[in-house]
């Protein structure tokens, strides 16, 4: 049973990481805390439902279209709301994003309704390996997440644009001095962050359900992941996601299921006490 629980924790942790990466990449590069993170996550799942219900019934094709639309939404949010607030005190952009989160949640309730929706996944059934059970749905979703991590890794470490992004993370002014177009980087990174967040919403929304207030617990989990892994670090968010997935499942099965969310927060407090910058954070 322990092996099954650890497997459950790792699988869900991998997908959790994607949620944290979206939040962290934005913070790491432009010091903007995306308080609308949870609602972008929710909108990702909604886009998937709308695309599948409208033009493209195929799940995987619809997921790809959702990801592209989410990137454009991110660009729109950046140009409309975030751009004038970059470099301003953290509170200005945080407040603007809280406004956006309230707007998004309520516009979805008003236009789409409060009803939960089950996103149908095309591959049913269960894989059993050595007495351990995983649904094909979870297995595929974890696979998609791992591919996303791989593409992200290649992009950040093997392309010039990725190198420019990492340089901007390390030192914005120095990057600008050597000719990096920082404002272009900002636009791209914010859109990328929103895209990853929306993708995690679409994937986790498929595993669970879509409902307009699903962003509330997502942002709480994302902040926990970011604290565990370290603010601003992509690798940290992935590690934080894995850690959160494990801690939640093991705490829930061996201590108390009712306090499942509390274990993640408890471990976040412990990390803050012993290593405030997080596991992978910059000291």
């Amino acid at each position, binding site marked *: *049973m322990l092996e*099954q*629980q650890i497997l*459950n924790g790792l699988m*869900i942790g991998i997908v959790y990481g994607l949620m944290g990466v979206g939040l962290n990449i934005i913070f790491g590069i432009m010091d903007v805390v995306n308080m609308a993170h949870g609602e972008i996550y929710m909108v990702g799942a909604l886009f998937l439902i709308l695309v599948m219900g409208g033009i493209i019934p195929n799940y995987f094709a619809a997921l790809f279209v959702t990801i592209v639309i989410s990137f454009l939404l991110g660009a729109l949010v950046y140009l409309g709301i975030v751009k004038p607030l970059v470099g301003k005190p953290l509170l200005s952009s945080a407040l603007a994003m809280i406004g956006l989160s309230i707007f998004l949640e309520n516009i979805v*309730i008003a236009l789409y309704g*409060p*009803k*939960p*929706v*089950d996103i*149908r996944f095309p591959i049913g059934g*269960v894989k059993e390996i050595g007495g351990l*059970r995983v*649904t094909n*749905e979870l297995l595929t979703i974890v696979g998609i997440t791992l591919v996303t991590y791989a593409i992200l890794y290649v992009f950040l470490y093997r392309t010039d644009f990725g190198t420019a992004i990492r340089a901007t993370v390390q030192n914005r002014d120095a990057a600008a001095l050597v000719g990096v177009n920082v404002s272009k980087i900002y636009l791209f990174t914010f859109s990328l962050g929103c895209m990853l967040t929306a993708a995690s919403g679409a994937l*986790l929304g498929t595993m*669970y*359900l879509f*409902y*307009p*207030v*699903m962003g*509330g*617990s997502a942002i709480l989990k994302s902040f926990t992941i970011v604290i565990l892994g370290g603010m601003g670090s992509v690798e940290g968010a992935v590690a934080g996601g894995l850690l959160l997935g494990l801690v*939640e*499942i*093991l705490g*829930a*099965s061996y201590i*108390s*299921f*009712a306090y*499942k*969310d509390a274990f993640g927060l408890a471990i976040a407090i412990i990390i803050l006490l012993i290593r405030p910058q997080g596991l992978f954070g910059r000291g």
Partner: protein
Amino acid sequence: MERRTLTYAIVAMIIVAIIAGAVGYYMLPRPAPPTPPVGPIKIGIVDPLSGGAAYEGQSGVNGAMLAVEEINAKGGVLGRKLLLIPEDSTSDPASAAAAVRKLIVEDKVVCVLGDYFSSNTAAMLEVSDEYEVPLITGISTAPKLTEEYHKWFFRTVATDAMNALAYAKFMIEQGPKTFVIIAVDLEFGREAAGIYGPSLEALGGEILADVYWYGAEEVDFSAMITDILAKKPDAIVEISETVAGALFVKQAEDAGIDVPIFGIGAQATPAYIETAGEAAVGVYSCLGYCPLLDTPGNAEFIEKYVLRYHEDPTEYAGFEYSDVYLVAAAIEHAGSADPAAIRDALEKIEISTIIGPIKFDEMHQSYSLVVIVQIKEGGEITLFKAVKAEKPPS
């Protein structure tokens, strides 16, 4: 000399002003004596319209709204229209209490309906007692709400204790000997789990583990399900709201659990059935109202509801629809829309509604029906049996 003239002038002016003021005061038109109010009779409804139970709360409001529209189309009550004012309670008792206070103080409603959550209703009835305006719930089932007397609080739905009496007997009749209970960690879940566990044990059932509690916003049950698989119960008692409950049965089916599931809460709602899909098939549920009942007016209600909202009514819609008719009957009976008169009328009233007859006992508890249903292939609900609730032995 000049100063004295000035003083006289000022004194004269003051005297003139006083006289003018006094004359003016008596000459001005008097405000008309208070005439009987002719505006609509306002009824408040407080339910969760955001948060995890937004769907259930909205369906209750939908039912009430339909009743108000029907009554108004027939000319209203005492020649006045009804006006329904909804407020969002979220899942937070403080917001629920604030919503009731706002409805009474600002909107001047004569009666309040709600809430979905027993914990919210517990907070709301303090407010309705304080402001002396009747509060009626057709959804909250925590027994303790009517175990102590509240002068201004009435309940049309049977309590969990009443339901448990009938439903636990039914579960044992179906054959299972061992059970596990999963329950949402809210007042409703705590109360229900505290009642069903002992009821099943009293009837010879065995409860295999401590109650599995989960948070109201929980979406991942894999840890719980792995544990339940190891315990191998004959049946699962699922005490839950729509979203979490649907996710639990879905994930349980994926994990290979195929024992009967006895639902308590939101299982027989279209949203639960739609979201749980195939996994919902076979799940039992115990309700206070169901579209299959052949109570007077039920068929017409369903027809109108489906036409208006494009889905079958939930039991919350059925109850809050009936509660509006109850209030209208009480106003008619009292011949007045005064909160105190409505309260007195509610104590005496006896009406027949789509949820069955409503009549309150000395604790303001009505004995509605206990309806046991099962979800079949294609999301159809079949009626197993309906019995009138009985007072449980205390």
